[in-house]
């Protein structure tokens, strides 16, 4: 057997095994401990069908990964499936015909009836056609509190944002940073969004974010918001970490009193073996307004020439939303499932709170769904500048209103 025949034999083996199972490359940016545990649930379920999940994790936040994903799709080197936050991010890709139409899969699976809240499916829909599979619901309006830190300070764990602000001096006296905050624009923007809904209330928020009414953004409700954010900024002065999970880790270890972060922080607490109610607590809507936004992750499937891959893509799409996969994935991720008809009894206290709010209809669309990436980036820039400097609240409010006035 000379080298050439060996090579031929090897090629034959490879191509034979490729024929029986379809390899799908799936890109996503789930790289923290809890996230990686969750995505492996998808991979296991897909591998169990006899196909192969090729993991294309992209380190860094969505801001790093999204451009890579989009340029691969635009550049003619598409992956088989990719995570994106549904909303307006993929609008133009759909218009350019680069993403696979999943309407037939959705109709076969009856997505219209099972997806709850239905606004999630609406974000996947363009001109009546469905282009993505929502896989989870993430809400950003959560305050995570460290029991350890409050024990050190000798005060009771607060039950809403106002109590938290009042308890901050005691925390500082005990050498604890009151608020953990990663120094990245999106985290500061998330904190701003959470405080907005808690302080300004739903009507003002909707008027500004959905209807882009700059007058309301200049009004007294938003003045109160910016003052609250300015005081939060002082509470987070000592927090120099960058990534969100480092900030969550400050809460886990009790070096910080609290963190404003989305429900994905839950996964980090689980990985650290912390128990809800004993080691940490969570306050959806900051304990003031029991309302959660319903952003989340969705999977998109770029158009592919190979009919075999296209069939596998549709199979994967159906799998991601199937009841068993939804339960195992969301338990690991700490997010809420997209279908209301499954049993989430295994979920812990925080998720139960979230499910309760969802069942009561306390939902609103996420910023991703209302604002374009362009506007989001400008607001993130403003927030990054505001949180790291001594910019007065009134100046930030004026700049914010200008961005809203320009928003499309």
């Amino acid at each position, binding site marked *: 057997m000379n080298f050439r025949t060996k090579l031929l034999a090897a090629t034959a083996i490879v191509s034979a095994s490729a024929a029986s199972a379809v390899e799908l490359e799936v890109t996503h940016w789930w790289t923290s401990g809890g996230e990686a545990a969750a995505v492996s649930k998808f991979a296991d379920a897909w591998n169990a069908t006899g196909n192969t999940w090729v993991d294309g994790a992209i380190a860094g936040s969505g*801001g790093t990964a*999204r*451009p890579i994903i*989009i*340029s691969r799709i*635009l550049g003619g080197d598409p992956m088989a499936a990719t995570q994106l936050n549904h909303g307006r*991010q993929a*609008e*133009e*890709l759909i218009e*350019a015909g680069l993403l696979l139409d999943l309407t037939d899969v959705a109709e076969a699976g009856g997505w219209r009836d099972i997806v709850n809240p239905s606004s999630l499916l609406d974000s996947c829909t363009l001109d009546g056609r469905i282009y993505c599979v929502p896989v989870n619901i993430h809400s950003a309006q959560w305050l995570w509190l460290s029991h350890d830190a409050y024990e050190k300070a000798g005060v009771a764990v607060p039950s809403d944002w106002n109590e938290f602000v009042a308890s901050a001096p005691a925390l500082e006296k005990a050498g604890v940073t009151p608020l953990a905050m990663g*120094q*990245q*624009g999106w985290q500061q923007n998330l904190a701003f969004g959470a405080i907005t809904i808690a302080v300004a209330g739903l009507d003002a928020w909707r008027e500004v974010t959905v209807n882009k009414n700059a007058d309301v953004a200049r009004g007294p409700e938003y003045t109160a918001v910016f003052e609250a954010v300015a005081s939060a900024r002082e509470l987070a002065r000592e927090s*120099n970490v*960058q990534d969100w999970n480092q900030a969550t880790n400050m809460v886990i270890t009790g070096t910080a009193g609290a963190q404003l972060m989305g429900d994905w922080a839950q996964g980090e607490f689980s990985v650290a073996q912390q128990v809800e109610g004993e080691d940490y607590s969570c306050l959806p809507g900051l304990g003031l307004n029991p309302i959660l936004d319903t952003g989340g992750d969705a999977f998109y499937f770029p158009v592919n020439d190979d009919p075999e891959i296209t069939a596998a893509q549709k199979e994967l799409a159906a799998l991601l939303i199937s009841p068993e996969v939804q339960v195992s994935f969301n338990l690991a991720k700490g997010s809420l499932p997209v279908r209301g008809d499954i049993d989430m009894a295994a979920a812990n206290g925080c998720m139960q709170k979230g499910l309760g709010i969802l069942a009561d209809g306390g939902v609103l669309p996420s910023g991703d769904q209302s604002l*374009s*990436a*362009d506007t*989001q*980036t*400008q607001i993130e*820039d*403003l927030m*990054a*500048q*505001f*949180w*790291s*400097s001594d910019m007065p609240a009134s100046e930030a409010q004026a*700049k914010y209103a200008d961005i809203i006035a*320009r928003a499309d």
Partner: protein
Amino acid sequence: MTVASDPPVQTVRKPNRMFKNKMAKIASIPMILTALCVFVGGTLWTVLHSFTGSRMLPKRDWVGLAQYERLWDSDRWIISVKNLALYGFFSLTFTLVVAFCLAACLDRKIRFENTFRTIFLYPFALSFVVTGLAWQWILNPQFGFQSVVRGWGWESFNFDPLNNPETVMFGLLIAGLWQGTGLIMCIMLAGLRGIDEDIWKAARVDGIGTVKTYVQVIIPMMRPVFITSLVLIASGIIKLYDLVVAQTNGGPGISSEVPAKYVINYMFQAQNLGQGFAASTMMLVSVVIILIPWAYLEFGGKKNG
């Protein structure tokens, strides 16, 4: 292109300058085409689309100067430009001065010259990302330089440039200089080696001191070397991007943003190509404003004279 299309009959009558070194010219056609299509064509396309409202995909809906108005109205862009000017000024000055001093020292026929040269040049072999990350750790107050000095007993020592908006650009500058000085030093050293030994002898005979000889005789003789260095440093400054991304990612807040990062962020993260194109066009304009008068003085004069 023109070479191939011209009829060869002409060459028999009067030899055309175009047809000298025919092979060399044919060989350079691919490069000429690349330069025309990719560089010039790409630049024109970008400038053209900076007047459109392109979002994620380029399209031709003209919006006039709206992108530029928004650009110069944006705090982040203004901060980026100021940062680049600051970084550029200090980087240019310090690189030239430090590199020349190092080269002059090595040129004094010291021992282990090869070893030192290698040590100084080594940082240049690292990518900016590695440099940025390494210096992010070195300058980290918890386990970097500050904690080492405090460990020696100087408890009140404070050195935390990266977390202070006022000093963060200097933190970047340290890393940039550390990386870039070695290469310029080698170029300068090569220049110094090119200086005739007799010049030194003559200076010694005339009783001119070493420093004075360097400043008044050697440096003017090294003009071409300085120009090469200047071009290398300047292009490094304009495209400053990866160092910032690795070391500070624009932070704290937006206080270490640079124009190249604005372009990338607005083109891909904000999915606003028009805005990114407008910013990159401004970068091009700034280079052209500096480059054209200089190139005219440097090269234009010689041709006429």
